[in-house]
């Protein structure tokens, strides 16, 4: 048992033999309360003020109409009804968000798994690669997106290279509804896969050599070893990576906001962008909160399903 630092006890009294009995134990528990509270207070206070309160407030606001200059009026489920039945623009953003998630999450996982498999076996300078591939994750998203925008626009870097190679202009990647979302996905991939790569390559390194050696003696080739031994042993990390990537990709905002500003003709407007527009550009605070609540419910359901499915493929032993 660890020794708790108990306020209010001098060293001498701490050394006194404790009288046996339940009363003494109860007092000790009560005595630790303020100390525990003091240690917890900074982070708990921060959580209460900056996380818990806004979440509760935003759920409450979602049931009101709240113009910026004025008082909120309670309207019940009106905002949700309008969003789901009378707002084609919102439904389009749900579709866009789903397209982004469906394209981005599997590609992100496949890419980070593949690169992890490539750099984890004793490749010369594996650490250098790891650092290089992790750099986009820690550089500010807005700056990354701005640089990608300069590369992708007509007369940008890619267009100029394209012209010198093929003699014609490159497609207008950001200005065409066919390619704008694709550009957003590719930029996000470049930005985001380094995080999962780091997790997966650590997991790969944790796979015991002895298991791989036994498998090799049994005649398993490198591919078989990867899929039958390494992947199952990595599955908890893959589950973690997949869940986190799924949650963050539903909340995608900065990339389309900077790259395309949601255009052309709302082909890259995501749910969080719509929330931002409604809340901070059109000042429908209640309506924006309702979008936030719907997004929360969506993420909750999908994460729940992923957790249910983990029993089938995640091995914790």
């Amino acid at each position, binding site marked *: 048992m660890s020794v708790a630092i108990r306020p209010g006890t001098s060293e001498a009294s701490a050394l006194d033999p404790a009288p046996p009995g339940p009363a003494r134990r109860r007092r000790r528990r009560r005595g630790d309360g303020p*100390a525990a509270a003091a240690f917890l207070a900074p982070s708990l206070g921060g959580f209460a003020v900056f996380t818990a309160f806004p979440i509760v407030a935003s759920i409450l606001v979602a049931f009101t109409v709240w113009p910026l200059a004025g008082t909120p009026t309670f309207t019940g489920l009106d905002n949700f009804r309008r969003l789901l039945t009378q707002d084609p623009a919102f439904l389009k953003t749900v579709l866009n968000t789903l397209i982004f998630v469906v394209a981005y999450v599997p590609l992100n996982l496949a890419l980070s798994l593949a690169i992890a498999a490539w750099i984890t076996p004793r490749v010369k300078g594996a650490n250098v690669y790891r650092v290089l591939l992790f750099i986009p994750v820690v550089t500010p998203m807005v700056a990354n997106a701005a640089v990608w925008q300069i590369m992708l626009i007509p007369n940008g870097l890619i267009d100029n290279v394209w012209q010198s190679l093929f003699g014609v202009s490159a497609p207008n990647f950001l200005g065409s509804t066919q390619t704008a979302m694709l550009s957003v996905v590719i930029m996000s991939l470049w930005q985001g896969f380094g995080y999962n790569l780091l997790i997966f390559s650590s997991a790969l390194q944790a796979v015991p050599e002895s298991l791989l050696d036994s498998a090799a003696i049994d005649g398993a080739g490198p591919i078989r070893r990867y899929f039958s031994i390494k992947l199952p042993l990595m599955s908890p990390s893959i589950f973690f990576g997949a869940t986190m990537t799924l949650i963050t990709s539903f909340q995608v905002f900065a990339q389309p906001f900077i790259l395309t500003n949601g255009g*052309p*003709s709302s082909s890259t407007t995501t749910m969080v962008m719509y929330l931002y527009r409604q809340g901070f550009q059109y000042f429908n605070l209640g309506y924006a909160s309702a979008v936030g609540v719907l997004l929360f419910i969506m993420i909750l359901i999908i994460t729940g399903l992923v957790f249910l499915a983990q029993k089938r493929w995640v091995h914790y032993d």
Partner: protein
Amino acid sequence: MKRKYVGLVAVAALALPLAACSSSSNAGGTDSSGNTVVNWSVWAGSEAETAAWKHVADLVHEKDPKITVKLQTAAWPDYWTKLPTQLAGSGAPCIAGLQMARVQQFANYFKTLDSSTLGTAKIATSDFDPSIIKALQSKGEQKAIPYDLGPYMVFYNKDAFKAAGLAAPQNGWTVDEFLTDAKKLTTGGKYGFAASNQIDALNQWGPTIGGDQAATAGGKLNLTSAGQVKTMKWYAGLVSTEKVAAPLATDSSDGTQFLGGNAAMYVTGPWDMINAKTQAKFDVGVVTLPAGDNGVTTAVGGSGFGITNKCSNIPAAEKALSVITGPEALGYLGEQGRAFPARTAEQSTWYKSAVDGAQSTLEAALKNGVPYRSTPTWTQVGLSYSQGAISVINGDGSAKSFLDGVESSSGQ
């Protein structure tokens, strides 16, 4: 005994984040030297513009050493999303910039400058151009005092015209002449014109191409009129069929393209003379907007400054406002090329410092100019327009169905 202190520490730690939340009011107060601080919020798109506003803020302190004006700037699009948030919260500036197209939208947040206020501040509205004074009124109440006005015109790259063997365009030129020149100027990866996805384009070209603007004189949205459809079709054609302007990819940067020498012409107002003078590495000329079926005509915009409702020190704000919109400040802004002064007596300052021929162009443009028309939800309409216009201008999608869509989604 000590246990009590631990409890106190816990309470204090819990209170810390709360303290961080309570923001001090921005409405004014005093600074370290005991001067009254007046917060002033305005848009600025370049260092040169910020420096000009800073100079005007210092001018107030010079005139009245007891007042210090604290300047806050934001880029044009950000300013309009930041301002409402500030006005609703506790950080409202005392004096804020207000563009005529957004007066209806923000009228409730600004104090009415009645005759007694103007009397105390020694501001005589008769010293200003009457059209812009009227444009900054809401329901007949003066909400802001103008500092500038200006019709749209074409800024062009004189060097590019010479290099293409073209004569300088003359005031009163037609859209056909404009197109011919733009085609000749489009060569070697450079374009004759820089297009924009902002709704302003419809008000710039609408009066002469289709005979109307994106809003009616009564403040109703007018995007579905035959005139607006015609204007947008013609404008999109510059990119998609005539190919005299680069395809758009994201929010347009027509000014940047022009100043960077990648487009030989673009449309803006006299307020951008400061950027043309400080940033262009070539000779800049100005000429009236090309005349379509309706002759030389375009929208005339303008802006001013008002006192916000949340301002806690009205007398200090009134004093500051009278200096900020006073003859000396507007004369300075005119000399810098930041504004064509709204005070008629100071207008010559802009002429003196602008590029050659600016005076005749501005006068010709003003002659048949019409007030810039807008609706009470202009910011929102502008946002949905700018997002969808890119594809239409690039040639994927019809102008008519797009304009119908923007109008119906705006709920007007």
